[in-house]
């Protein structure tokens, strides 16, 4: 098997049929990367939908091309060398190639050239870093809470955006913003590090407990942009998703108006029973409902404010469809269907679930 | 040669002292590429590495002491310092560095007796320092600053505790050398062992020099 003669057995001289695979596979991959902005990827960073994300993309594309150039150059030379200078069957093994030890000019060249290329990249990169940290004056401000495993949003009083109510607007999981409007997020966390990320609007920003970070967002057009938590935060990190809903002016006004209405307390029927159950079953120990259940138990985990629950489309970290009644009933039956969820409830009868659902439905 | 001798052959030191070849195990450091002894080089490398250990602990302390924590539990460490006492401790440790180097110098002159005296003195001064630290810790705890009380206390005790453990290990090494010397196993050919333990000891001293200034004297 192993030849004793120097140095390699003849078998190796055969062309490995796979040698072509390298360039083809790689080219294929590159092609796929470049066409990755296919529209069936709703959360793609390659498909920016706002000025910030576009700035990032605008930075990425040229760098991508630089990398592609280096890639083609390096792989090209490797492949060329591999074919050009491979030892062939019947070669005289004692004939040695020229023993080149090096070439200082070349060395200097290939030290300086990449350095220049990188300097160029740096020149375009550095200003953007500061640009993205600038704080525009006329932004809509939203306080964002990343908690296990959901997102909470509080809009302070901002008359210029129609928010006049004293304690502002509180909602969860779906972030509503006006399109073509800069939004300044203030990010905090009550438990561990999360990361707010809506790729089509901007990169991600870590939400660090004990700190308040700011981050900017802007959407070109009305629409729904999906995102999710970007930092590992425990069992259900994968289920800590979010949506950004950008409205046109009219839509925004409607939304703001609706969110500032305090829901009425149901007085009859199933919903009224649900209203009672909401306290009896301990829901109000964790969840706030404006005008009805305002204070939560001191040891409660952070839980979404449910005042306008049914103004949303998704719930529990945006992994369930709120328009699907079964999903909500399943949730009330067993919140642990979302693994690691911090919502703990005692067993509820089907009747109680119906009643609670009836009550929750009034919260819009 | 009896078995007893063999099991206690001249390399008896807690410091790793195996040479690569038999003749290196005891020989002067002349068979190495740099002419330096393996053990000493090893100790210096270790000390270089320790710089990053203590650097990390000191930075942690500095960061957390400077931090404004609204409603912090317990007192701030700075309010409890007994600077005169700590100054004495620092002085004790400094002097132990002197006695350490005197011991080395004695053993290099094959002056066993003095070497032994200074070794024991160094160990005793080290013991005094550690006792002072135990006293300080106890006093702080009595004054309301436990290990878990606040950010600063955790960082403080961890940093100075790490240093104290280093001192204690140093004392144990010194005592081992002392015992070896009593049993006549610390010939001047083994002066290097004393030197290496000494390096460790001085390092612990310079760490304290830094701690004394950065942790105790510079106000938060």
């Amino acid at each position, binding site marked *: 098997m192993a030849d004793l003669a120097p140095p390699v057995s003849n078998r190796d001289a055969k062309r490995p049929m796979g040698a072509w695979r390298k360039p083809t596979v790689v080219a294929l991959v590159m092609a796929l990367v470049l066409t990755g902005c296919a529209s069936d990827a709703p959360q793609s960073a390659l498909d920016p939908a706002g000025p910030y994300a576009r700035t990032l993309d605008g930075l990425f594309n040229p760098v991508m091309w630089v990398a592609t150039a280096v890639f083609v150059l390096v792989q090209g030379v490797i492949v060329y060398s591999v074919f050009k200078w491979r030892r062939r069957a019947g070669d005289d093994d004692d004939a040695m190639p020229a023993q080149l030890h090096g070439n200082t000019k070349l060395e200097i060249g290939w030290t300086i050239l990449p350095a220049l290329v990188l300097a160029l990249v740096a020149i375009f990169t550095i200003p953007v870093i500061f640009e993205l940290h600038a704080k525009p004056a006329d932004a809509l401000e939203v306080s964002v809470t990343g908690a296990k495993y959901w997102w909470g949003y509080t809009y302070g009083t901002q008359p210029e955006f129609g928010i006049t109510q004293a304690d502002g607007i509180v909602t969860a999981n779906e972030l509503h913003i006006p399109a073509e409007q800069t939004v300044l997020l203030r990010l905090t966390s009550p438990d561990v590090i999360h990361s707010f990320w809506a790729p089509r609007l901007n990169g991600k920003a870590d939400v660090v407990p004990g700190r308040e970070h700011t981050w900017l967002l802007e959407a070109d057009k009305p629409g729904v942009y999906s995102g999710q938590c970007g930092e590992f935060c425990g069992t259900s990190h994968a289920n800590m998703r979010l949506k950004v809903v950008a409205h046109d002016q009219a839509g925004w006004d409607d939304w703001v108006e609706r969110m500032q209405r305090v829901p009425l307390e149901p007085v009859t029927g199933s919903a009224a029973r649900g209203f009672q159950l909401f306290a009896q079953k301990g829901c109000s120990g964790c969840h706030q409902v404006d005008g009805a259940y305002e204070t939560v138990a001191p040891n409660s985990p952070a839980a979404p404010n449910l005042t306008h629950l049914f103004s949303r489309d998704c719930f529990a970290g945006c992994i369930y469809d709120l328009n699907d009644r079964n999903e909500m009933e399943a949730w009330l039956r067993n919140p642990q269907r979302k693994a690691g969820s911090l919502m703990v409830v005692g067993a509820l009868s089907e009747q109680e679930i119906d009643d609670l659902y009836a009550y929750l439905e009034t919260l819009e | 040669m009896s078995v007893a001798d063999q099991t206690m052959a001249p390399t008896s030191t807690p410091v790793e002292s195996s040479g690569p070849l038999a*003749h290196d195990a005891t020989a002067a450091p002349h068979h190495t590429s740099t002419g*330096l002894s393996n053990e000493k080089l090893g100790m210096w490398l270790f000390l270089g590495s320790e710089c*990053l250990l203590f650097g990390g602990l000191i930075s942690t302390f500095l*960061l957390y002491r400077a931090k404004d924590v609204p409603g912090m539990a317990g007192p701030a460490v700075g309010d409890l310092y007994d600077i005169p006492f700590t100054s004495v401790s620092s002085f004790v440790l400094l002097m132990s560095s002197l006695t350490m180097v005197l011991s080395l110098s004695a053993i290099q002159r094959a002056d066993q007796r003095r070497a032994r005296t200074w070794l024991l003195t160094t160990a005793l001064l080290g013991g005094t320092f550690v006792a002072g630290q135990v006293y300080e810790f106890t006093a702080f705890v009595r004054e309301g600053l436990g290990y878990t009380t606040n950010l600063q206390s955790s960082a403080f005790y961890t940093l100075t505790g790490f240093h104290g453990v280093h001192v204690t290990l140093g004392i144990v090494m010194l005592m081992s050398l002392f015992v070896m010397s009593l049993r006549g196993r610390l010939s001047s050919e083994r002066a290097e062992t004393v030197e290496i333990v000494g390096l460790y000891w001085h390092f612990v001293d310079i760490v304290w020099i830094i701690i004394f200034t950065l942790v105790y004297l510079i106000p938060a």
Partner: protein
Amino acid sequence: MSAESTAAARHEEYQAQTEHEGADHPSERSYVGIALILAVLTAAEVATFYFEEELGALLIPALIVMMIVKFFLVIMWFMHLRFDHNLFTRIFVSGLVLAVGVYMAALLTFKFFS
């Protein structure tokens, strides 16, 4: 003669060419002298504690300078770096510089010095 000893002899020869420092250690008197300087410096450090107001903005620089001087006195004399092979110095100083560098930088990112 065994191969071992010829190799050793070659070693010896090779060693002779490489420079070898060391051996000349300072006298005990100079050790005591250094210790005295150290003690005086420590006293001066402690004194700053009682003259905090008077020193004002000078306090911290003064303390740091004294600390550095003490530090270097110990490593140079007691640890013999001054007299020993400079490989030791290089190794230790690289650890030291690295530690100071990375941790200062890390503290900077926390805006520690501002």
